[in-house]
């Protein structure tokens, strides 16, 4: 079983992705194991663990390796997967961004994920907190017949990281596929994430950055995408928002803006498959602030004072001059109407048609 030896090689402590690739370019897995393997390791027993965990092992250059990744110059020599690799067939868009994002970023990522899946585009992401998770939640919220999601993670497939995403992780594996180049039991060490990002960039036809700080991890993915000629799109954000710093910079340096699913579909040359919704909304102005504002003067004043940045009750009271009681009533009504969302004492304006989550 070549795969068994390949998996065992990948788990050797001193062999990273690059060394592994060198070995397997030169030798078959069996030869490489004979040369570099650890005699104390029972390869058959390890292999049983993979079979028990339902993890498939793919070796570069052999049958079963995802063809979309095979041509990449830095393709992982051994790839592990849980789920159905069919989730990689067809157009693929990676949605990436900051782990600590704003409500705006979450909503945009969620919408993009849902609408792209509905348009038959596979959404790739890293299952991290923040934008990554929101995009996949969006995919899972898409209707029947939506394209299944795919995730590339940095740890072994039995080491769920972040643990808060255990459920999402399982759901993505059931609906689509979760990939990793790390063997079972590999800890989520910091170096694995930039390495993981190159696989994301290699698999994607388009990379969409939703929100990212100046020194965010998205930088690695964008760099890898640039090297491979994969187009990078960025979601415009407020110029004063630190989490939109990098995305706005990408826009300035020539990346295409991704306002909604249509923009991404144009980049994929697939326009016409989208739900035809985002653009229509923007055209008739129902989602812009002019036509849609609540009737109540207190509520309108609060929305005005809030803008598109999170604000605490304290700040809103100061800005509007309302009493805390009046402001609370108006905020509760706004929240019931789906205008704003309150969390941990902070209030944020959401688009009127944003899905209730």
């Amino acid at each position, binding site marked *: 079983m070549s795969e068994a030896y390949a998996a065992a090689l990948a788990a050797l402590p001193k062999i990273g992705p690059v060394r592994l690739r060198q070995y397997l370019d030169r030798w078959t897995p069996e030869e490489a194991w004979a040369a570099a393997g650890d005699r104390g390791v029972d390869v058959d027993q390890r292999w049983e663990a993979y079979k028990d965990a339902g993890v498939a092992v793919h070796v570069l250059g052999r049958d079963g390796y995802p063809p979309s990744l095979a041509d990449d110059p830095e393709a992982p020599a051994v790839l592990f997967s849980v789920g159905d690799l069919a989730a990689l067939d067809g157009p693929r868009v990676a949605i990436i961004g900051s782990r*600590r994002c704003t409500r705006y970023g979450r909503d945009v990522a969620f919408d993009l994920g849902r609408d792209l899946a509905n348009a038959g585009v596979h959404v790739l992401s890293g299952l991290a907190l923040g934008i990554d998770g929101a995009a996949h939640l969006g995919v899972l919220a898409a209707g029947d017949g939506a394209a299944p999601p795919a995730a590339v993670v940095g740890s072994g497939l039995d080491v769920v990281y972040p643990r808060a995403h255990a459920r999402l992780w399982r759901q993505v594996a059931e609906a689509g596929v979760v990939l990793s180049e790390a063997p079972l039991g590999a800890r989520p060490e910091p170096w694995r994430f930039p390495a993981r990002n190159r696989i994301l960039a290699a698999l994607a036809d388009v990379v969409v950055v939703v929100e990212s700080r100046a020194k965010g991890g998205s930088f690695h993915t964008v760099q890898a995408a640039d090297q491979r000629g994969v187009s990078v799109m960025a979601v415009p954000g407020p110029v004063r928002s630190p989490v939109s710093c990098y995305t706005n910079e990408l826009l300035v340096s020539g990346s295409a803006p991704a306002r909604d699913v249509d923009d991404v579909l144009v980049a994929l040359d697939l326009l016409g498959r989208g739900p035809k919704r985002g653009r229509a909304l923007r055209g008739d102005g129902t989602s812009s602030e002019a036509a849609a504002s609540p009737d109540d003067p207190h509520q309108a004043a609060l929305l005005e004072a809030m803008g598109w940045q999170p604000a605490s*009750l304290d*700040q809103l009271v*100061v800005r509007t001059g309302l009493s805390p009681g009046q402001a*609370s*009533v108006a905020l*509760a009504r706004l929240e019931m109407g789906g205008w704003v969302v309150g969390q*941990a*004492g902070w209030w944020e304006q959401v688009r009127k048609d944003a899905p209730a989550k």
Partner: protein
Amino acid sequence: MLAIVPSATLLGVEGRPVAVECQVSNGLPGFTVVGLPDTACREARDRVRAALISSGLTWPQRKVTVNLAPSGIRKTGGGLDLPIAIALLVANDELDAESIAGVAFLGELGLDGSVRRVPGTVPLVEAIAARTVVVPLDCGAEAGLVGGPDVRGAATLKSLVECLKGEEVWPALPRFHAEPAPPGPDLADVRGQEVGRAAVEVAAAGGHHLLLSGPPGAGKTMLARRLPGLLPPLDRDDSLVATRIHSAAGLALPQGLVTTAPFRAPHHGASLVSLIGGGTGWIRPGEISLSHAGVLFMDEMGEFPPTVLDSLRQPLEEGVVRVCRARATVAFPARFLLVGATNPCPCGRGDDLCRCTVNARAKYARRFSGPLLDRFDLRVVVGKPNVDELLRGGRGETSATVAERVAEARRRARERGVRCNAELPARLLDYSVPLTASASSLLEHKLRTNGLSARGLHRVRRVARTLADLAGDGDVVGDEHVCLALSLRAEPRLGEETW
């Protein structure tokens, strides 16, 4: 010759009567103390000997045995020096047994024969059944606070012996200076911070625990320090209990009885024992008991060790903390108003400009366990006041004005049979907090959209009750109060991690 002198020792915040028995008999000269004395108590031997000699009294060159009965309780501290010395004098025939009949003694001796103050005079004197009790002159005022036996003061052993023999008159007891305590900081000094001020007022009126979260310099500490000034004076029972606790902990009682709400602000390095109570030998009341009937302010609450924070949960629920040791179990009263202040994250900047990593923030949030956070009825985000208000804003309401409203709200709570609205039992909520139709539909919406848990619902209703009481509104609680109660109970920042 045998002599028995009544006295008392401290167990927790209560006194326990102790009989000091002394026998002087023939045998090799020596001095033994039996009956479970602790180290300080055992050392009485050397202090008593030196005090007798410096007072010009005779130290018997015979065998002296002192027994502290009952032998099962551990005797702590130096408070038994004086009764041992007196019992020895009687047993050695220096004093008549009649002269000390019905008199109990308390006090520590100095080597020069002076009688020094002992902690816990108030509960100790309470525990003594004798007609008269002699205490250190310094503690004379304190000893007379709670009634009970006649109090006499003694400055030195020599003068005491003279008084007992009838050769001298008893010295006059010191009195408390009647001058009132200087007023605490005033709420009017807080510029802006309308929400923070409202939260402090509600906390004072309803006895709701308060968690203030905000960046450094937002005025969290400033607000918290003004809270005791809003609380009404303690009633007689609370006052006695608080006085007993403060006395037992050895705190000075400059005003006599503790009549204003105590304010304690332990540093975040505090150990579990210092906060809860305990200690080896002498079981001391902790900070939570010292703030009984008052305010416990925990600044930088996130910096307290999680075990220390979680140890607050049971006393918060029961108002009493039971400290169990192998030798004794002591119950300390601990009904306090908890005010916590915390930064939103380790860097303190909070939302947009925060530079903490996701993990650092998550770790910081985990320092507050869910059950502990749940006990805060008020969780308020305070921001830095804006410059205009800081420089040009007028002074807000004074503490006195707010305290009047608080007193009125507390009076209304007493009509419902509770000390404050935070103590309203869940079964009485429907009766005590009737809601308008729109207010209850609003709560229903919150419940349905998972914005509120069942326990949270109760707590919101109690806070809404307090808000309505403060506003002087009628019995039915309307929208505004429910909404504000909801806003003042920000869900903790833990939900963020699920994304």
